[in-house]
């Protein structure tokens, strides 16, 4: 794997004024993430990990410090430019899926492409849905899909623009453990086989062990940063138990492997 730095953060702070007091949500964070890493960001609630993710996701601006994404300083960019960065370099996966109501899966995945004025939207959306194993659910609406399927649509939407970094904010938080393992397995495969750089917020060490590196955040600072010694394979095989789910799981695994040479990496 190459060692190109994709995220470079130096002395990042985020402060809010609360009456006369200045409260620091981030009190000087420095962090480097290389291309192809799968970083789990851990920390208690209120530790600042969500604030860090919002800034890394260009949804919020730091109060001070440097944030370079793919070699470009984004900490002082104009709003429109940040939108373009979010569109082209970042992909988001949220705890609550955040799909648009009423839209079919393929339309959901096409939304980011609308804003980049891409031409072959439908083909690319179908390709992304195939990558996450949803080629049979292309025309389903959120209300017609399970939580795991909805989250996979969200992952397809995040991947469709071939972003530099995939940001996942507790992606398994709303899912039961069996489906969580499926999603984690999918993220692991995307990371390993397609080289997608992933930043994932979680507060469960069990889930963090699926990453290649964990970063501990506490009181707005990095309090621990180490590689995962014994990386855990997400047990997606567990999902094979019920017949219907087994079909789903195997098809998803099969597709990823099959699609791997054609899809290329980031």
């Amino acid at each position, binding site marked *: 794997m190459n060692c190109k730095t994709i995220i470079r953060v130096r002395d990042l702070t985020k402060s809010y004024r609360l009456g006369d007091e200045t409260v620091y949500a981030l009190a000087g964070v420095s962090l480097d993430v290389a291309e192809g890493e799968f970083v789990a960001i851990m920390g208690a609630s209120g530790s600042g990990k969500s604030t860090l993710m919002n800034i890394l996701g260009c*949804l919020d601006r730091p109060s001070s410090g440097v944030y370079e994404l793919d070699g470009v300083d984004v900490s002082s960019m104009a*709003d429109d430019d940040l*939108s373009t960065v979010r569109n*082209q370099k970042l992909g*988001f996966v949220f705890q609550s899926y*955040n799909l648009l109501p009423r839209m079919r899966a393929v339309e959901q995945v096409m939304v980011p492409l609308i*804003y980049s004025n891409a031409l072959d939207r439908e083909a690319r959306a179908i390709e992304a849905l195939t990558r996450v194993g949803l080629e049979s659910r292309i025309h389903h609406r959120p209300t017609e899909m399970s939580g795991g399927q909805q989250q996979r649509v969200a992952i397809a939407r995040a991947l469709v623009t071939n972003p530099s970094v995939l940001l996942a904010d507790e992606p398994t938080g709303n899912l039961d453990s069996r489906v969580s393992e499926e999603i984690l397995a999918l993220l692991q495969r995307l990371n390993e086989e397609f080289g997608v750089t992933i930043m994932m917020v979680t507060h469960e060490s069990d889930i963090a062990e699926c990453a290649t590196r964990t970063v501990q955040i506490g009181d707005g600072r990095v309090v621990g940063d180490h590689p995962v010694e014994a990386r855990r394979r997400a047990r997606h095989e567990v999902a094979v138990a019920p017949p219907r789910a087994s079909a789903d799981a195997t098809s998803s695994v099969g597709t990823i492997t099959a699609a791997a040479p054609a899809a290329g990496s980031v």
Partner: protein
Amino acid sequence: MSFIDSLRVAIDSLSAHLLRTVLAMLGLIIGVGAVITLLAVGRGSQDDVQRNIRSLGVNLLTVRPGAPSTGGIRAAAGSRPTLTYEDAQAIAAPGGVDNVGAVSVEQNIGIQIVVPGGSNFATQAIGTDEFYSIVRNTPLASGEFFYEDHLRTNAMVVVLGSNIAQTLFGSLDAPIGQQVRLSLGRTGATFTVIGVMSSRGGTALGNLDDRVLVPITTMSRTLVRFRAPTGIFVSTINVQTTHPDTMPLVAESIGALLRERHKVTEDDFQVQSQQDAMEAAAGVARTQSVLLGSIAGISLVVGGIGIMNTMLVSVTERTREIGIRRAVGARQRDILMQFLVEAILVCCVGGLLGAATGIGLSMAVNGREILGQTMHARLTPDAVILSLLVSIGIGIFFGFYPAARAARLRPIEALRYE
């Protein structure tokens, strides 16, 4: 984000909330419909007024006492009487004014008409001469009109308007030869009915069917009982010209003759052509339709506010959607465009439906009798186009604030919105 994309998103979102969309449009539909209908009815009544005036006589010059004023409308009524029956006779006399056809005078007074049976009626008596029926283009329904002799001899004869005849005698033929008493305050006299005018219907100048006609000389002697040294005062001299083209020339000649007769240098009378009267009346009608249109325009504004309200609700309801779109790369202007297009689309559809309503209503009203008056509506394309443009304008104006509010939402806050 292209315009087509914005349009597609707008159509999706509007059709997802069909009832709300239709309710939002309703104000606009009613507003546009009302504007178009009222403008059409306004135009129709403008036509009516012109038709009425034209029917009062063609190639007609009207001489009235009082200084002339601009715009064809006298600033004040009740000008000092200066015109006389003798002035009219001088205009009509051979060698008076060239290119003149019939000349007729009118003097209105309020009178009470009493039938021997006991019924009575308060109305206006018009003192006039034997040329009235020609100049005013009004034929008789029965009997006969005044002769020159009636005027010379102050004959106690009267011609009734059709309404009066109907009301007091029950038919247009019955009054002929009957006696009626006309009284003005304490004075009064008994007249013999010699004719009944045919019905003209209400006109812009009041309902002539309610009037009675008496010879001007008789009126002066038996009712008004006043005769100035210069002659019998009249309020109007109507002069028919032989050809429309000669009207300015005739007006000039009348002016010269009257100045000489009145021994004045400044005009103490004014000569108005039928054209002037028509323009003045059309001006009044136009003002009226603009007024009506403006009142209807208020409902357009109310409709616009309704749309703004709906759009604000829609923005609030879709805060999370806005957050998601911003997160995946929508710029502020993309969000602005999306909601603006949505508002404009609502207004366009509402405007079209309103135009259809207005056109339908105008056609339904046209020629129908409403409250005893025959309505005329004339649809003009400019009214329809104007209302459509105004609805698009309303969409932009009232859609902008909600759209700008949506665009200004901060992505993280919008995403967190429950």
